[in-house]
């Protein structure tokens, strides 16, 4: 931040500016564990402060062109939202337990409420984010969200999920093109074709893997039956190890393929005004991260989790940069949307991260 900005302000051509990430697993672990202790000691009240501290650390450790991102969520507002959310959930759980049939009433209500929740929580999340003192914004409306999430969802189901990739595409598009940095709107250039490609590739890989496992375990079963006597312990253990590895390693590999393709498709197609974002996550590296993270978390009974999260985040940001056209100094702040104060308060209630 003290060092001078790496970009000449008046350059006419484009310049590639990388994202930087300075967070470390050790620091994040210590923040996490102190947060956790205070949350337990305060019977959960502190969790709102913990969330703000955690997010501020992650945002503040991420920077672009020498300026870090900032998270502006207020603990008291988040606490209020959480209390309301817990209350609503408890009432819902009780009512559906005592009168199970009321779920038939709740489900359609949820289907129409969910797009509203998504819009409000997204609006809240974006408003709480800033870079160089310019707040982000979200301009999606209920109608658009309803058409995107419910409308295209229905289409996906009717077509037996053949159109599911298009549904995913529309959701990503809805979230991104309605995002703004100050007054500058975002654009999304990735076409639906890429979503179809990786969706069906992943599906094919999954089906192929399941078929291979079924065939192999069938073969092992046949060996059991044909042998007559009990199979040797070594053989049984080998088969078991093979199946367990297959059941863990294959989902991990397909998961890594999916996340690599999905993340690259999202961020690789993102542009903020004239500035284009690049994202080039590589499958091999991501799979290696997945495997080592899962092993680390398993072997430490979960203690490795903060390091796992930081490693994952650092790798993604290493793969991302921005092709800056002109200058990053020209974002302008949007007028503060005082009018939607109540909407934002509701957004805090539903500050749920839906991902994409």
């Amino acid at each position, binding site marked *: 931040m003290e060092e001078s900005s790496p970009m000449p302000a008046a350059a006419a051509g484009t310049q590639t500016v990388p994202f930087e990430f300075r967070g470390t697993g050790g620091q994040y672990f210590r923040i996490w564990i102190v947060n956790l*202790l205070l949350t337990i000691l305060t019977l959960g009240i502190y969790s709102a402060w913990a969330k703000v501290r955690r997010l501020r650390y992650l945002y*503040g450790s991420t920077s672009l062109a020498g300026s870090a991102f900032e998270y502006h969520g207020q603990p008291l507002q988040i606490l209020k939202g959480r209390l309301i959310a817990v209350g609503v959930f408890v009432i819902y759980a009780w009512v559906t*337990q005592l009168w199970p049939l009321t779920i038939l009433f709740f489900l359609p209500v949820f289907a129409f409420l969910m797009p509203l929740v998504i819009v409000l929580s997204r609006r809240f999340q974006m408003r709480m984010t800033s870079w160089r*003192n310019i707040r982000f914004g979200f301009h999606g409306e209920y109608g658009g969200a309803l058409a995107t999430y419910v409308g295209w969802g229905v289409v996906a189901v009717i077509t037996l999920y053949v159109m599911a990739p298009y549904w995913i595409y529309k959701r990503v598009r809805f979230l991104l093109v309605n995002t703004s940095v100050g007054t500058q709107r975002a654009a999304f250039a990735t076409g639906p074709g890429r979503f179809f490609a990786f969706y069906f590739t992943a599906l094919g890989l999954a089906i192929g893997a399941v078929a291979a496992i079924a065939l192999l375990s069938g073969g092992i079963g046949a060996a059991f039956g044909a042998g007559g006597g009990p199979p040797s312990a070594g053989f049984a253990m080998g088969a078991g190890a093979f199946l367990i590895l297959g059941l863990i390693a294959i989902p991990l590999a397909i998961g890594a393929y999916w996340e690599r393709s999905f993340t690259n498709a999202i961020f690789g197609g993102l542009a903020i005004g004239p500035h284009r974002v690049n994202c080039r996550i590589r499958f091999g590296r991501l799979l290696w991260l997945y495997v080592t993270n899962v092993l680390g978390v398993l072997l430490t009974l979960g203690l490795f989790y903060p390091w*796992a999260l930081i490693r994952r985040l650092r790798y993604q940001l290493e793969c991302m940069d921005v092709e800056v056209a002109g200058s990053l*100094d020209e974002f302008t702040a949007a007028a503060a949307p005082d009018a939607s104060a109540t909407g934002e308060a509701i957004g805090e209630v539903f500050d749920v991260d839906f991902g994409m």
Partner: protein
Amino acid sequence: MIEGRYFDARTSASHPAQVEIGANGILRLVSSVELRQVPLESVSISDRIADIPRRIAFDDGAAFETLANDAIDAALDAAGRGGFSRRLVRWERRWAVALAALLAVAMASWAFVKFGVPALANVAARAMPASIDATIGSEGLELLDKTMLAPSSLPVARQEELRRQLRGMAASANDEHDYRLEFRSGKRIGANAFALPSGIIVVTDELVELAKSDAEIDAVLAHEVGHVRGRHALRLLLQNAGVAALALAVLGDVGSASSLAAAVPVMLVQAKHSRDFEREADAYAREWLRAEGLPETAFDDMLCRLAREDDEITYLSSHPPKDERADCKPARKSPAR
């Protein structure tokens, strides 16, 4: 003098700037675009977290950002505005504190899972009417009939005899459940007995044949009544929800691949809780035998015979080890195998 960058409230242009917090409670900002002098109370200074940039926000939306965390802290101390966040940062910096916090969290989680979750689930279960039990796993028997079980070939007279036994037992259980005894041939599961939360108890023909006396069958029935009466299915559901809530609280937003690993402790705890329920049902069976003046050995003998029959495969995870549940005599080599 604190070095940093100044942003006006309008654009993303960043201007080199310096800030000075005077002893008189006045904050002075010098930048290439603006000179500001405001009372310290009119700005909000973000709490320190590790070494991420610190932000001084002016009331008109402009902001000063700096990495000089120590200088800000010193200035705030001088102005008498330290506060709790200073202590937090010191804790977060030290590994010794992190380790102590880790121990405390581990102990609190352990105590919560061992005592808090079962107690809370018990209270919650008591608050729910017995009719809820019937909704848990109500399709379970239908599914089992299609996959693991076949119609019973036990003589009807014998079935009636055993049903009478259960009726007596249900009367002494004295709760709101509607006990009913069903017989099946245990195609895949062999000698076995289980109870649905609603009070339907299923016994396989193989188990009836395996028993050396009616007292042994009674012992098994009493064990199953113990499960139903203790509402173990509902409590296990509630306890799992409690453990999942704890895992969620501890791990926060569990991300992608790691959630697989986070599920493991939850599964381990569930296995432990269901073993506890087996012990509770065992205790109920023994108590019932004593009250009826039947020998407790009927329960031990039946359990040992079942364990031998099963080779302990199905009893491995969700049931306590048989040596702990029953005093088994050395097993004779079963001629059937």
